[in-house]
């Protein structure tokens, strides 16, 4: 808990929920008759509406990108390092919007929401939504907020995929796209990791084919393993070595199956803090959204062709030790963008933190990101 809320924080924030009455036809063929999105905003929208930024969240995060709900909160929003007054995404100058994506478990309509017809949670019957569906719902949120064109749409990881989708689907509604530690599609290895995570959840006896809410249970064991696996892949071998090495928790090995090494303790802690805060069905859904994302799937694998409709300017960033969304994946995106003669800059940040680097305060990352944000700032009136 911070002693007091730091001055470079957006401070206390309150989420807002909007109920959308317009049915949303989803990529999978089903239609959501109506739905809710919960979102937060920081900063003030200027008179011309030219200073709006959309921040898209990754797999397990949500609309709470910055600030605190309560002075007693242990942790601020997930991108507190980046978003705030005077920070890289400067809320003194920009109006920042972040929503919990459809299928989420933090207030937007998702598997744990009560189905209006059955009076029971959707559970596994909640349709799988895709990155494209999210972007449509985010565009509708922009309409509600009176934002015609985003100064920039910004996101890391799965959030970066949403940014790419925005640039293709609504080229006239954003001026800049900031794509961080992303990929235009998952590799087989990546899909494999997701499948192991899903199997861990689905094979938990408490899963009940996704209808666990009615049983008053939760597939906590499965979700814990899924989270541990995810965490290993979000870090690099180097950073794990640096953070934990072979350090022992109690100074000696126990010759039993309890926690010996610090890294085990860390993984258990991460798992503990995840369960109870995250819905297993949402985890399944989000990993599917990741797996399905492949804009070049409609253009015979030609990403340049897929990105042809895009017209905004791009900033692409990757991190050297990120093996889950490696620099090569970002380079593919950059190639497709300059194939289309689009304005694009690309930075490959030296960092040992692995995929999670996009959440960290890494000096070169902040320098590059801030320089680009400054460029956007010059254009707003």
């Amino acid at each position: 808990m911070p002693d007091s809320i730091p001055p470079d924080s957006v401070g206390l924030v309150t989420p807002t929920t909007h109920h959308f009455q317009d049915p949303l036809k989803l990529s999978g063929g089903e239609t959501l008759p109506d739905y809710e999105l919960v979102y937060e905003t920081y900063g003030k929208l200027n008179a011309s509406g030219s200073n709006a930024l959309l921040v898209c969240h990754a797999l397990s995060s949500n609309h709470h990108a910055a600030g605190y709900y309560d002075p007693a909160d242990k942790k601020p929003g997930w991108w507190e390092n980046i978003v705030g007054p005077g920070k890289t995404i400067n809320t003194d100058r920009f109006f920042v919007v972040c929503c919990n994506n459809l299928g989420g478990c933090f207030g937007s309509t998702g598997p744990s929401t009560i189905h209006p017809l059955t009076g029971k949670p959707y559970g596994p019957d909640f349709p799988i939504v895709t990155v494209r569906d999210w972007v449509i719902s985010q565009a509708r949120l922009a309409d509600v907020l009176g934002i015609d064109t985003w100064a920039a749409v910004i996101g890391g990881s799965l959030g970066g995929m949403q940014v790419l989708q925005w640039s293709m689907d609504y080229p006239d509604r954003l001026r800049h796209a900031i794509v961080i530690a992303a990929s235009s599609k998952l590799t087989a290895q990546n899909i494999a990791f997701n499948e192991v995570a899903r199997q861990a959840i689905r094979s938990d006896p408490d899963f009940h084919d996704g209808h666990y809410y009615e049983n008053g249970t939760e597939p906590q064991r499965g979700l814990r393993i899924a989270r541990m696996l995810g965490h290993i892949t979000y870090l690099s071998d180097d950073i794990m070595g640096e953070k934990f090495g072979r350090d022992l928790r109690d100074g000696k090995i126990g010759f039993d199956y309890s926690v010996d090494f610090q890294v085990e303790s860390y993984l258990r802690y991460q798992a503990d803090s995840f369960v109870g805060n995250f819905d297993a069905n949402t985890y399944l859904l989000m990993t599917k959204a990741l797996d399905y994302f492949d804009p070049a799937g409609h253009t015979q694998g030609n990403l340049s062709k897929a990105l042809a409709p895009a017209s905004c300017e791009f900033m692409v960033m990757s991190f050297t030790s990120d093996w889950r969304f490696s620099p090569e994946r970002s380079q593919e995106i950059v190639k497709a963008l300059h194939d289309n003669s689009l304005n694009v800059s690309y930075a490959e940040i030296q960092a040992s933190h692995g995929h999670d680097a996009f959440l960290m305060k890494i000096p070169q990352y902040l320098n590059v990101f801030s320089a680009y944000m400054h460029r956007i700032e010059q254009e707003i009136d």
Partner: protein
Amino acid sequence: MLDLTNRPDLVIVADWIKPDSRVLDLGCGDGALLSHLAHHKRVNGYGLDLEDKYIPRCIHAGINIIQMDLDRGLAEFADNSFDYVVLSLTLQAMRHPEKLLEDMLRVGREGIVTFPNFGHWRARVQLGIFGSMPFTKTLPNTWYNTPNIHLCTLKDFEFLCKTLNIHILEHQAVDSEHRSNPGLKLFPNLLGEIALYRFERG
């Protein structure tokens, strides 16, 4: 906008580039050339550089910069996608200069290179008379710690161009202050400290 005060060689390069063209600047540094071209000649394009420090500077200057190692080659750039591909004071640091030259003319219609002339009289005196590796204003590194692994003279470069069937369109040699003079025009390989070439496929 960045100016070219410290890089008069780039003033000559900028003069060679026609307005409204597309330029790929290899080893673009802080983006001075592209920034100058964007403001004076409506030129658009990309700068490539590997150095961390240049990335925010180029972004700040409004230049498209792509961070990459030039030794990786230009494979990711499509054929004939630029009017000019520029390589200033970097050729001598490349692992495969000859491959890069060919790649430049695959990607661009014309190539422009500038490099420190190893045939300059001062370098010749230091090596030929005093017997030690040249150490000059344009070659300011010790032999054991230098990025310049493929130094050449104007004559060497022109011979390579002939071998690679590269047609030289224009060339100039300047002193370390990047000025030209009648003597330099007469004996460029002896008096020129920096060589500049514009070329196309032969």
